[in-house]
């Protein structure tokens, strides 16, 4: 019996080392909560802007090419850049904190592999959205952001916590729905980048806490 315990312990240790050395596990649920909240505030900001009567979201989407509402577009882009910056900052900060607590370095080969696999689809989608933006073909930008982000998460999911795959699937479904209900893009954007991140972050934070 004692022998068997030793063998089981040996197997558990092998599994643990294989995972620890090949996967990025410093992702913190808290960064999901913060990044999601930032996204919700960003979307709220846009909504208030449209409510103030300065711009109409529906006509904005129909406005392609010459008829596009340029000041509103500038406001949207600036708002999006600030949201992206704050979200990345929180991901970096909370991952660093968790890595420190787990006693591993944040920048190791598992991290590099995960980021490479995340950023190949993500950068493709980002560049595509920028091209559409410069051509003022605006209506598909939000769904494409959601779809490429979801695909990027699933691609990176092989090299980090498996639960990331569920977030990726949720983003893809949200992205497809955003194409169907194209005039409600802002709502789906808030759902995908805001609400899902917050829910995912809270669930992950408590699951990890229990595991420790």
């Amino acid at each position: 019996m004692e022998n068997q315990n030793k063998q089981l312990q040996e197997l558990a240790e092998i599994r643990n080392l294989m995972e620890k050395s090949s996967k990025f596990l410093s992702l913190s649920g808290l960064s999901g909560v913060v990044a999601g909240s930032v996204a919700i505030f960003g979307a709220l900001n846009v909504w208030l802007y449209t409510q103030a009567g300065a711009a109409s979201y529906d006509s904005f989407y129909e406005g392609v090419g010459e008829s596009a509402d340029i000041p509103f577009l500038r406001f949207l882009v600036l708002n999006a850049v600030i949201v992206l910056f704050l979200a990345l900052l929180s991901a970096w900060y909370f991952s660093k904190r968790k890595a420190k607590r787990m006693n591993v370095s944040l920048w190791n080969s598992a991290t590099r592999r995960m980021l490479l696999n995340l950023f190949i689809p993500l950068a493709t989608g980002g560049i595509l959205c920028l091209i559409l933006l410069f051509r003022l073909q605006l209506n598909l930008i939000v769904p494409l952001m959601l779809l490429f982000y979801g695909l990027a998460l699933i691609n990176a999911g092989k090299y980090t916590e498996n639960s990331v795959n569920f977030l990726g699937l949720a983003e893809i479904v949200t992205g497809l729905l955003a194409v169907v209900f194209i005039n409600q893009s802002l709502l789906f954007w808030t759902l995908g980048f805001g609400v899902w991140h917050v829910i995912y972050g809270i669930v992950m934070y408590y699951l990890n806490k229990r595991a420790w």
Partner: protein
Amino acid sequence: MINPIKQINKTFESRVRLGIMSILMVNASVDFNALKEILEITDGNLASHLKALESEEMISVSKQFISRKPNTSYSATDKGRQIFTSHLNALEILIRSNNSKAQ
């Protein structure tokens, strides 16, 4: 039937050697400092176990310079992979047979 005890490899009685092989099974190549960090052991301890595995031809060593600093990285050889896999299989058989005896 082959005796599973025979397949339990003596080399892997050490926790560190078992750990090194586990890590190298899932990573193409890992450098010395990364191994040290994951296994949480001292330089000397790690070096001696790496030497033992190298002399059994279970791992291969490659040395190079990365921005003028020497960097040593290790990978599992085909022989090492094969031995580690049969070690795992033997562990599995032992645990299974213990389970069926207990029932």
